């Protein structure tokens, strides 16, 4: 039980962190005001919100995986057009924008979805109910056997 709660808490930490990163990135992008910014902001806010709630989180993670790969390709091509240093790509973008987000996405994907109990997904598919029933049954068993 404790292990289950610890795993759920660990997954909640990395999922909510990634959710907040995208949610606030989207919100902060809105004042920029170009149609492209609005489109990306809607995507970031939507996917960040889904991750925060833990609703369709695996689907949201896969969308974010495609998004971060697309953004990396964009900045790669941009680096060839406007090279910055010997590696061409902007090191600040790679190290402080792309890689931290990619790391959170990768860690989230590696963690087991079935242990993500502090989420709307777990409530909807009945995992929380089954777990609480199991815990109640385990608590009753010793007293019944006496």
């Amino acid at each position, binding site marked *: 039980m404790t292990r289950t709660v610890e795993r759920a808490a660990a997954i909640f930490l990395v999922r909510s962190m990634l959710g907040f990163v995208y949610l606030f990135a989207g919100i902060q992008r809105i004042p920029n005001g170009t149609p492209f910014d609005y489109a990306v902001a809607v995507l970031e806010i939507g996917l960040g919100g889904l991750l925060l709630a833990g609703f369709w989180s695996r689907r949201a993670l896969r969308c974010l995986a495609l998004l971060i*790969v697309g953004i990396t390709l964009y900045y790669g091509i941009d680096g060839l057009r406007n090279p910055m240093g010997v590696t061409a790509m902007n090191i600040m973008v790679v190290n402080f924008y792309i890689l931290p987000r990619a790391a959170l996405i990768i860690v989230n994907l590696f963690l087991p979805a079935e242990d993500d109990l502090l989420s709307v997904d777990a409530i909807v598919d009945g995992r929380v109910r089954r777990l609480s029933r199991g815990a109640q049954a385990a608590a009753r068993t010793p007293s019944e056997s006496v």
Partner: protein
Amino acid sequence: MGTASDRSWAIFVARTILGVVFCIAGIHKTFVYGPLEHAGRLFVEPYADTFLPVWALWATGTVVPIVELVAGALVLVGFWTRPALVALLGVLVLVTFGHLLVQPATSIVPFIMPRSTLLLVVLLMPPDEDRYSLAYLFR
């Protein structure tokens, strides 16, 4: 661990970002600098006062951009991924040695360590789980 499909997505993210970073650097060094210019400016001149033989500096400085370009492209598309990763690992070890020979220990943090981390993620995962790759498509 996540499901096999989730792990495949995680490997896809790590592999493609690693591939883009190395391939772009390789394209820039090969076609903008040129391998010889790259070797002269970044390998021969900065290490002229060290014990390293000049012929070795020319050789490695000329080869590194091409290795980064070819291996980066292979990693990006996921074809011959393992040999390409080993080649990039060799580049990372080489440039780690080179940086630390003439610069402080922190000099490897911004460029070399993030790339090494991504490379390790891909290298340590089973190749069979890299489903979103050309190698998996043509197996």
